[in-house]
């Protein structure tokens, strides 16, 4: 699929880094093999429908100030994308929560970013955050641990 769209194929396995998953696990790992690696500008041109059949997509954050990829993740999930969604680029540990709650399965981080924030902050990224939102949109099936489970409004409506 990525070939027919004439996309830059993701640089498979290039670069050392770490992966942070939706259960909070944090492990050293090479850059993941993804069908497609996308910067926010590119999505408009590609058309959402072309992306849905892919197995895995990486969305890039160019700076921690640019939240477009959070909305792209949600848009992909809303459109029915069921594959693996990975956030890459200049993220902060504090944004791991935003990523998972917007529909990402996990993050992949370059070594320098992990070192600068220090490993402990990434390991704690899903611990020291507000875990339960009032209204949570559909979470990826892979999510487990603190962030998984019903939101506050659902719990209230069930009298919990």
């Amino acid at each position, binding site marked *: 699929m990525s070939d027919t769209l004439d996309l830059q194929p993701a640089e498979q396995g290039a670069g050392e880094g770490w992966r942070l998953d939706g259960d909070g696990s944090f492990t050293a790992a090479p850059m993941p093999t993804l069908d497609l690696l996308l910067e926010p500008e590119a999505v408009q041109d590609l058309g959402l429908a072309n992306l849905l059949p892919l197995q895995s997509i990486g969305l890039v954050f160019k700076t*921690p*100030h640019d939240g477009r990829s959070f*909305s792209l993740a949600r848009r992909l999930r809303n459109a029915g994308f069921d594959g693996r969604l990975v956030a890459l680029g200049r993220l902060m540990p504090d944004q791991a929560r935003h990523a998972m709650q*917007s529909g990402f399965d996990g993050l992949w981080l370059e070594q320098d970013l992990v070192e*600068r924030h220090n490993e402990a902050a990434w390991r704690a990224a899903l611990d020291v955050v507000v875990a339960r939102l009032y209204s949570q*949109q559909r979470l990826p099936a892979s999510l487990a641990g603190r962030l998984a489970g019903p939101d*506050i*409004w659902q719990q*209230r*409506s069930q009298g919990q």
Partner: protein
Amino acid sequence: MYAYDTFDQTFVDQRAAEFRDQINRRLSGALSEDEFKPLRLQNGLYLQLHAYMLRVAIPYGVLNARQLQMLGDLADRYDKGYGHFTTRQNIQYNWTKLSDVADMIDALASVQMHAIQTSGNCIRNVTTDAYAGVAGDEWLDPRPTAELLRQWSSLHPEFAFLPRKFKIAVLGAAQDRAAMKFHDIGLWAKLDDAGQPIYDIWVGGGQGRTPRVARLFQKAVPLADLLPTLDAMLRVYNLAGRRDNKYKARIKILIDEMGLEPYRAAVAEELGQIDRSVFAPALGEYRRIAAQFETAQRPALQGQKLPQGSPAFQAWLQQNGMAHKVPGYAAIAISLKAKGAIPGDASGAQMRAVAALAERYSASELRVSHRQNLVLPWVKLNDLEELYHALLEQDLAEANIGLASDIIACPGLDYCALATARSIPVAQALSHRLRERERLQGPLDLSLNISGCINACGHHHAANIGILGLNRTETETYQISLGGRADEDAKVGDILGPGFSQDQVPEVIETLIDTWQALRADGEDFATTYARVGKQPFKEAVYV
């Protein structure tokens, strides 16, 4: 009032712990200032000219006595004994230390308050009418909608790093007392034939360097569709809003450049993809919240009578009182605009004194108004005179609500890192003159707002007389605009002409008022006279 349950309390407690951790990581150097900036802003912490400023949310302007008392204590303990109430129902502490902030946030959480999203490129504190629930012209109490939106938008994962800040206001009355049409999204709540809430959604209002009055996006949206619609509106903005220039990043510019119709179409397409089941609990949640506000309403009182009192009491009641929707009560505004005062400032002692008065005379409830004043919403008619004397003792009985001397002003160059000119001394000088003039001539029915730079936090565009401080060739210059209004007939003011020096401003303003008084028809307010006669006579009067 809305009271936190354990979910709400856990939410703010966890957020406080999260921010404490972020501050520690900044202090240790693990977070760079560039990374820390959006995080601290989302917790209300600015870096100003001289110190950090903490902006605390007063959600939809509602406070209880205990909360105001805490705000007063924080002013004494962590600031220089003052707090500054803003036009968006927040309070700012201008002299906080980074090392104290986490403790301040914990103290706020202990009285069910927070500083979440009072700043940053996210959905800000949702505001409303300071007279919500008590105004005689109200169709629907807007506070349950505002609380629903507070919960929905708090820590929203997708909308925390928007192109720019995003402000929402909700109204439920005939009159707009919250400048709704100068918000990114304004909701005007009404009731349908079955008595259920429906909302007219307005979009793209704002001030700053490109002032815009909001445009009608959609009429009569039912409550069940409200959150999905807002979700789609925000997503389209997050993805399509400009990020190359922060002065062109607000939704008003997106609407200008994209066009309202194409924006509507994009939102409709987005809405088609949304999983609505996520929002289904919102209806029950709205009812749960609304029930709390309803039980806090008081029944009509028998045997209450408006007191006669002295002429000064009568003048105060006339100016600062508001007819109540429940017989037997009045809503009373407390002016924070005494002669020569800094608009919106209150000392710790004043806050505690007002908290005590609220406890005694207003069912422990208070409001903060868009015009930077306080309101006691539940005063029994029989208590009015006693309250007036108690306020007099605290120097808080200034009878100037809604008059020229009830000036809105931003902090300007005295505090703000973005300012190009001072606004506080200008406001103080004008306050002296105008209050004196009101004493001699009676009420001056016009609004006067001052901003210290083009960002327009002092709402100068939306004032009958607006003053904008600029810096031209290293001297402060004040540009004047006329005819703006922030009510339901919202309008951006017209620039009068070349600016004036700080010394000239009071004289120029008095000339403008003289001109209005000479031209006005019987009982006409400034905005009406201006709409009738236009700019020319005012221009001729000041540029001779």
